[in-house]
């Protein structure tokens, strides 16, 4: 398995974390080291074994169709770094 700088850069872009050029190589080594360690799972025969997404054994509980949350806008915006006229504000996205 290869984990080169380009791959690390790709993963970092997917995860929206800026990495400097200098950080790419040491990170690539580090991640490769960890991923290699994980490869021991290939020793395990898991044919016919279902993946376990949760230890909870029941089906998804459902709630009634009631409006139970009338949060006021001030609460929702109070922690925001930047707001304007009741909106959250971010640098413009061009589509």
């Amino acid at each position, binding site marked *: 398995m290869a984990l080169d700088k380009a791959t690390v850069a790709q993963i970092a872009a997917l995860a929206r974390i800026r990495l400097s050029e200098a950080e790419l190589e040491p990170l690539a080594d580090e991640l490769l080291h960890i991923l290699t360690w994980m490869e021991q799972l290939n020793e395990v025969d898991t044919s016919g074994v279902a993946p376990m997404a949760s230890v909870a054994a029941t089906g998804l509980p459902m709630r009634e169709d009631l409006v139970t949350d009338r949060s006021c806008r001030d609460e*929702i915006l109070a922690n925001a770094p930047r707001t304007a006229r009741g909106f959250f504000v971010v640098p*413009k*996205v061009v589509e």
Partner: protein
Amino acid sequence: MIAKGTIGGRTGQWETVIGLEVHAQVISKAKLFSGAPTDFGAEPNTQVSPVDAAFPGMLPVINRSCVEQAVKTGLGLGAEIRLESVFDRKNYFYPDLPPGYQISQYQQPVVGRGCVVLDMPDGTAREIGITRLHLEQDAGKSLHDQHPNLTYVDLNRAGVALMEIVSEPDLRSAEESGVYLRKLRSILRYLGTCDGNMEEGSLRCDCNVSVRRPGEPYGTRCEIKNLNSIRYVMQAIEYEARRQIEIIEEGGTIAQQTRLFDVGRGITRPMRSKEEAHDYRYFPDPDLLPLVLDPEWVERLRAELPELPDAKKARFVSDYGLSADDAGVLVAEKETALFFERVAAGRDPKAAANWVMGNLFGALNRLGVGIDRSPVSAEGLGSLLDLIADGTISGRLAKDVFAEMVASGSNPAAIVEAKGLRQVTDEGAIAAVIDSVLAAQADKVAEYRAGRDKLYGFFVGQVMRATQGKANPTLVNEMLKKKLAAL
């Protein structure tokens, strides 16, 4: 001879292949995974739960009613209901997607294969396959036009339940696509699971369009996103098909792209954002468990489904003797069909159909209202038909009465009395009028007897004028014929 449904290019015939993905907002009071309200048009960020805003530690809990709506829709599409389905996270970053992932269903949706039958204008029926239907969260709204460098974000819509309905790539023209969308919308409105209001965004459509030579494998497709009117869908498809044909005929290849429809210029163009391959890293949402449905609950929902357009149309044809076309028009909207049946109950169904589709629709169109806001009630129209049927007024005067009903909201009997429009059925009175007309038109009578049969209509017209239109036309005809013959 151009084959039906193909487009002529420079180098021969082309077939357009279209698949539609419709996002339908579910009718519910609260959102899919939170208790915030779903009303349209509220002030920004006033209908946002901390769950919707993805605050730290917040968790989703599914709304039973939204699940019900999805299952009902699946049943209404004749589709397979999956008793066990899974919610997955679709991971990507965008400001109107607060958690950085959308809760959706990827590999195991709640509804599987189904089918929609289209009644094409030429009378044929086309079956369009439904691939799947799944539940997912809607995103908030990003406003890019409020400021030169900033995007404003409103999360009111974030977390509202959507049903994504995916069709098989069975559609072959823009026209078919329009019919499909109208039919789908009709079914959703019948079921009460989505109001189908494209202007308000409760129904949105993404189109997948490709072209190919008839008989060949599918070509590369482009996706045109977020069309919010049937007209735009059709325009976009037509433009896109032509665009692709031109490229291929010039020797090029189609790049698989996501495109937007530029309404102003009537063209599709690629989205400007970086065309990085989207790696959504789907995985089952660990804050949720598999959705397990009780088969008895599903069967109860099936039993409680309302009569859907296709079944209703068939019934209208068989029970009321209507033509397939007329039945099709009347069942397009559930409210219209209901209105019609109330008018037709115990009356001549064809007359009822004609009055609804003709006079009533005409009035509603002029006023710009839907049948739910009709100034004339079904009972009112029914009473008017009764007055015609029992001879109280003539069919022609009934039109005037109807116009007055629309304008004033009064009931027909009152209007007839107030305007003195009662039909004259007194044979003696009619006879007297006929006599006086014939006497006054002696020269025309002579021409008639000499062979100008067309004058018959003139005499009828004169009698009706003399009686302010109130003479019973049947009696007039009977008696006029007799009198003329006796001369």
